[in-house]
């Protein structure tokens, strides 16, 4: 996968609330598929489907324990995805903060006139 495909996969994976909940759980440590399924009113096959999407996006991997096959979180794609839009946002945030100041200034004259009257 190239960078752009990777990001697509990451954002698609993050678009679903169940998958975000799974990631939040995995952020606390490796977890077996059974334990992951517990908090959700969902069948294990349904959870497995979500896990597959997360796996394909590289957001999770399978831990060392061959028997439990616990899932664990992978840091890199999340870092990349957060940096991606974050940099663009910062680009504009700086501009818009200055625009806030300018707009305040543009709004000021009528107020001042009112007060001096």
């Amino acid at each position, binding site marked *: 996968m190239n*960078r*752009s495909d990777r*990001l697509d996969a990451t*954002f698609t994976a993050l678009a679903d*609330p169940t998958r*975000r*909940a799974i*990631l*939040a759980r995995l*952020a606390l440590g490796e977890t077996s598929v059974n334990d992951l399924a517990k908090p959700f009113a969902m069948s294990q096959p349904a959870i497995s489907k979500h896990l597959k999407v997360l796996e394909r996006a590289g957001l999770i991997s399978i831990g060392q324990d061959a028997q439990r096959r616990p899932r664990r*979180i992978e*840091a890199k794609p*999340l*870092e990349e*995805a*957060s*940096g*991606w*839009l*974050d*940099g*663009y*946002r*910062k*680009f*504009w*945030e*700086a*501009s*818009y*903060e*200055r*625009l*806030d*100041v*300018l*707009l*305040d200034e*543009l*709004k000021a004259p009528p107020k001042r006139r009112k007060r001096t009257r």
Partner: protein
Amino acid sequence: MKNTGTLKVETRGDREIVMTRIFDAPRDLVFKALTTPALLKRWFGPHGWTLTECEVDLRVGGAWRFLSKGPDGRTMGMRGVYREIVPPARIQYTESFDEWAAQGSALITTTLEERDGRTTLTCISLAPSREVRDAVLATGMEHGAAETYDRLADVLHTLAEKTAP
């Protein structure tokens, strides 16, 4: 309720970037600030960058041209043509970065909605291809790089917050 100042940035489909931001000012002022060179020079550009040249021919078919100077003498040129001008509600124009000019232009549609004296700005940028959109995002990423990116912990914190019962 104070939620001005929060900039929302999203990608939509393969070719779009959608930005939303609320300003604490009526939209005729926002429109003026978006289309008047003397005012644009005072706010446009990321940290450390200044808009040194700004030409705006504000009519349908009219051209615009920005040149920004950044740290280490770097420059960033942009240009385009106005397609639609409906003051103070909507403006549409093409946009190309000098660096990416050969790849075609993006189509930018900015709408301004006013409620209770505050203005919601929505800016939809439709890139000619996914490659160009991603390149533009990457440019922003590069320019924003001086500031630290959110650490993974922050992302996970947000995820955890979103999913908390």
